[in-house]
């Protein structure tokens, strides 16, 4: 970016002018300067002098393969800081350095890909520029909120917290019961988006979930569904147009060997039998928080006999896990959302009577 904040985009392609027109029309409201090169060699030279935030490189250049050009650029000091979209790929070699790739597709699909991805990139830069300090603080804070992983003889609880961008719209927490450590309480939630607004919503949901699940631990609720219903009602009491989020609360009772849960929009849990390598889905239909104020949620449970693994996750995780399914569009294979998951491992000895 220039000191004035204009975002520079360099297009290296025999059809640079066409691409530039697509992007220009799609990003009229942003302060963007476009530069173009028709060949790879002139592109390298231009990139070093312009220092663009984004370079869009055609794989099919007249003088150098676009993938090699990308690797060369990425290994320079300036290029390493430049986001690179590589398009028109026919094949993919190891060690590809581009940040985004697009195989050879029809022109309208290429236009959609380049305009949507470039817009996302420019929006992100603009947001970062406007809220740089807040984002840095929020980014640090979201990691502070994460729980301590549990590693005991009877139970191992770990998590994956992988924001799509700087900030995640997901969150989770878990802990062992204060008095006897025989129960594992926890929750996981998924708010829309990955920006400061989502971060603020995450804080609200985290607070509500933790407070009410702690109250449940103290015996103020008789079931997890009551916890979820109470949170949902609170949301509507606080705001007549409340935020929406998907969430799940759970309690693993190690003595009674039962996993209890109540879901509000996180409708898939994965569990694994000891004799099985694969996880199976436990599907529990439920509406997200913020749908209707008087909605009823349900208590669910399953026994832990024969179970040695449970995964509770946002749908960003289940999507990539089941992406090999024939039912799903193949673009699911790419991670495109926040991914958060809690992995509960129950060593065999802890569940034998």
């Amino acid at each position, binding site marked *: 970016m220039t000191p004035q904040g204009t975002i520079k985009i360099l297009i290296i392609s025999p059809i640079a002018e066409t691409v530039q027109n697509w992007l220009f029309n799609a990003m009229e409201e942003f302060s963007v300067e476009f530069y173009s090169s028709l060949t790879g060699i002139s592109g390298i030279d231009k990139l070093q002098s312009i220092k663009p935030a984004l370079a869009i490189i055609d794989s099919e250049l007249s003088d150098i393969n676009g993938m090699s050009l990308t690797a060369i650029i990425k290994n320079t000091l300036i290029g390493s800081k430049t986001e690179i979209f590589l398009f028109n790929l026919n094949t993919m070699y190891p060690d590809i350095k581009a940040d985004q790739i697009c195989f050879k597709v029809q022109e309208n699909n290429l236009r959609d890909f380049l305009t949507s991805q470039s817009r996302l990139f420019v929006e992100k830069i603009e947001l970062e520029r406007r809220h740089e300090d807040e984002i840095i603080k929020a980014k640090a804070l979201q990691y502070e909120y994460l729980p301590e992983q549990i590693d005991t003889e009877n139970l191992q609880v770990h998590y994956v917290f992988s924001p799509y961008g700087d900030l995640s719209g997901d969150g989770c927490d878990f802990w062992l019961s204060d008095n006897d450590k025989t129960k594992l309480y926890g929750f996981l939630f998924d708010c829309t*988006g990955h920006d400061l607004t989502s971060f603020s919503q995450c804080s609200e949901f985290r607070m509500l979930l933790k407070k009410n699940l702690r109250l449940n631990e103290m015996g103020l609720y008789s079931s997890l569904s009551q916890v979820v219903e109470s949170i949902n009602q609170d949301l509507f009491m606080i705001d007549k147009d409340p935020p*929406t989020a998907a969430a799940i609360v759970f309690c693993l009772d190690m003595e009674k060997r039962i996993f209890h849960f109540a879901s509000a929009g996180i409708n*898939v849990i994965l569990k694994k039998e000891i004799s099985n390598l694969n996880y199976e889905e436990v599907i529990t239909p439920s509406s*997200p928080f913020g749908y209707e104020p008087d909605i009823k949620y349900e208590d669910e449970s399953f026994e832990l006999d024969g179970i040695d693994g449970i995964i509770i996750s946002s749908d960003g995780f289940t999507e990539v896990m089941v992406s090999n399914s024939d039912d799903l*569009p193949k673009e699911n294979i790419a991670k495109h*959302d926040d991914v958060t998951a809690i992995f509960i491992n129950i060593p065999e000895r802890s569940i034998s009577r």
Partner: protein
Amino acid sequence: MKYVSIKGTSAIINVPGRYDLCNTREVVAEAEVAINNKGCNSIIVDFEGTTYLDSSVIRDLVKLRRKIKAENFGAKNASGIVLEMLKRAKLENWLTA
């Protein structure tokens, strides 16, 4: 508009292919233009051609439904994974035809 068309006073949302986090905000923005600036007083989500739906879309549709009032909101032509996602969220009652 790319995803929203206007028929009388209804805004018709139709997202071919994948309807997810990548396009839901654009859809919401277009639907809000239809409501605020084009005089639309109802929303119909036509899932014809939609092959996938994720939870962020459901949450955004919940918000649009609240904005337009439940009686002015409906959906149609859901099948396959899209229908399954609506059922999982207990929202199959959105389907009007």
